[in-house]
C-alpha cells in the first residue's frame, strides 16, 4: 500500500493529460465549445493535475525537498517526468488563462505545446518503470498501458462534461471503444509476456490474476465496453448520465489495474 500515492498520481496525471489533449483538439477542430464550458473543463483538468502533484509528494520521505527532483534530468527518467509534468501543469494553467481571456489563437498555440510536453511526461513516466530489476515492469506494455490510461479516461472525462453542458458534437463512444479494444489487446500481450518471462514475472501474473481485485477490474472494464458498444448506434444513450457511469467504471478499472501493477511487482 506504500505505493498508493504513485497509483493516484499516475492515474490522475494521465487522466489530466488525456483530457487536456482532447479539449485542445476539440476546440481546435470544431470551435463549438463555448468560453464558459471550455473554462470549466480546463479548470477541472488543472485541479486534477494539481491534486496529482500534491498526492505524489506523499510518496517522498522528504516532500519539502521535492523541488530537487529535477536536478538529475540528464540521466534520470524520474527527474524528466517531474520536469515535464511540472511544465505541463504550468502550461495548462496558462491555457486556462487564455480561455478566461477568450484568446483562441494563443490558446491553440499553448495547447499544442502542452500536448507535446504532456506526451513526453507520460513517456518519461513509463520509462521510470521499464527497469530490468523488476521483470513485470520491464516491457513495452508498460508504455502502452500508461498512454492508454490517458486515452481511455481523458476523452471520456471531457465528453461527459461537454454532454452535461449540452455541447457534445463528437461521438465519444467511438473513440472510447477503440481505446478499450487497444487496452484489451495490451492486456493480453501483458499477461502472455509475463507468463513467458522470468520467474518473477510469472509470479507477478499469478499474484495479479489470483486476487479478487483483478476480477473487479475486468468486470468494470467489460461492463463499460458493453455500454459503450450499445451507445455507438443508439444516440439516446450518448448522454451525460451514461458517460458519467461509464467514466466511473473505467476510472475504477484503471485505478485497480495500476494498483495491481505496483503491488505485484516482484524484484529480481
Amino acid at each position: 500500500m506504500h505505493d498508493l500515492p504513485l497509483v493516484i498520481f499516475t492515474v490522475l496525471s494521465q487522466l489530466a493529460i488525456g483530457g487536456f489533449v482532447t479539449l485542445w483538439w476539440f476546440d481546435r477542430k470544431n470551435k463549438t465549445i463555448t468560453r464558459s464550458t471550455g473554462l470549466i473543463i480546463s479548470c477541472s483538468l488543472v485541479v486534477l493535475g494539481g491534486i496529482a502533484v500534491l498526492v505524489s509528494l506523499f510518496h517522498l520521505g522528504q516532500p519539502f525537498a521535492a523541488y530537487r527532483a529535477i536536478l538529475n534530468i540528464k540521466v534520470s527518467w524520474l527527474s524528466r517526468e517531474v520536469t515535464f509534468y511540472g511544465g505541463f501543469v504550468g502550461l495548462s494553467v496558462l491555457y486556462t488563462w487564455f480561455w478566461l481571456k477568450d484568446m483562441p489563437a494563443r490558446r491553440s498555440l499553448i495547447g499544442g505545446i502542452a500536448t507535446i510536453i504532456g506526451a513526453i511526461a507520460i513517456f518519461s513516466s513509463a520509462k521510470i518503470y521499464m527497469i530490468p530489476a523488476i521483470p513485470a515492469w520491464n516491457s513495452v506494455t508498460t508504455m502502452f498501458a500508461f498512454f492508454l490510461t490517458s486515452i481511455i479516461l481523458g476523452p471520456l472525462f471531457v465528453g461527459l462534461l461537454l454532454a452535461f453542458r449540452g455541447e457534445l458534437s463528437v461521438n465519444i463512444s467511438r473513440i472510447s471503444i477503440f481505446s478499450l479494444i487497444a487496452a484489451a489487446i495490451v492486456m493480453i500481450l501483458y499477461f502472455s509476456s509475463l507468463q513467458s518471462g522470468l520467474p518473477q514475472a510469472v509470479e507477478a501474473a499469478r499474484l495479479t490474476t489470483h486476487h479478487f481485485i483483478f476480477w473487479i477490474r475486468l468486470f468494470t472494464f467489460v461492463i463499460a465496453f458493453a455500454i459503450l458498444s450499445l451507445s455507438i448506434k443508439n444516440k439516446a444513450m450518448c448522454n451525460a448520465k451514461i458517460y458519467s457511469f461509464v467514466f466511473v467504471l473505467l476510472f475504477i478499472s484503471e485505478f485497480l489495474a495500476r494498483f495491481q501493477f505496483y503491488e505485484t511487482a516482484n524484484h529480481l
Partner: protein
Amino acid sequence: MAKKLGFLVNIERCIGCHACEISCKSFYQLEPNMRRRRVQELPEDVVGTPVRAFVSTACNHCDDPACKKACPVGAYTKREDGIVVHNQDLCIGCQMCGKACPYSVPMFNPVKKKMDKCSMCYDRLDVGQLPICVEKCPLEAIQIVDYNEVQPANAVSEIPTFADTSITHPTTHFILHKPGKQSRRF
C-alpha cells in the same frame, strides 16, 4: 589507471557468523531492521555436491550502477576508485534507487526518511583503514580488491541467488567451495 575497488567474498571461509553484518550495523548505528550487509545461506547444491554455504553481500559498487541512473536528485556518485557513494543530504527518499537496483541494496531508513546503503567505508579507506566488515570478519572471508590490478584465481562474479550481472556489472566477486567428492556407504 584508475582503481576499480570491489569486495571479494570467500564463501568457502564464511561460516555465517554475521559478524560483518552486525559490526557494520553497530558501527553506523543503523535503525532496527536495517542492514548494509546481509548474510544468507546458499542452496546446498551451490557447487554440485552438498555443502553448507553462506554468503555475505552488501552494495556491489557496480560498474554501471542502476541506482545512480534512477536517482532524480543526483545523490549517487561513483568515485574514481569505483566506490558508489550515496549522499544522504541530497536524498529526498523517493525510493527509486531501491526499485532500480537488481540486488535491492538501497534501503529506506524509516526514521531519517532517506535511503541508506553501504559506502565501502570510503572514509576509513581514505585514511588507510579497512572497511569495518573486512576488519571484523574472524575468518578474513571478505577482502577489498582492486580488480584493475588483480584478478583473483577461482573468483566468480555469479552465484545462485545473485541477480543477472549483465544488468549493472557488479564488482563483487566470490570464491566458492571446491567441489568435493561425495562418499557413500552401501
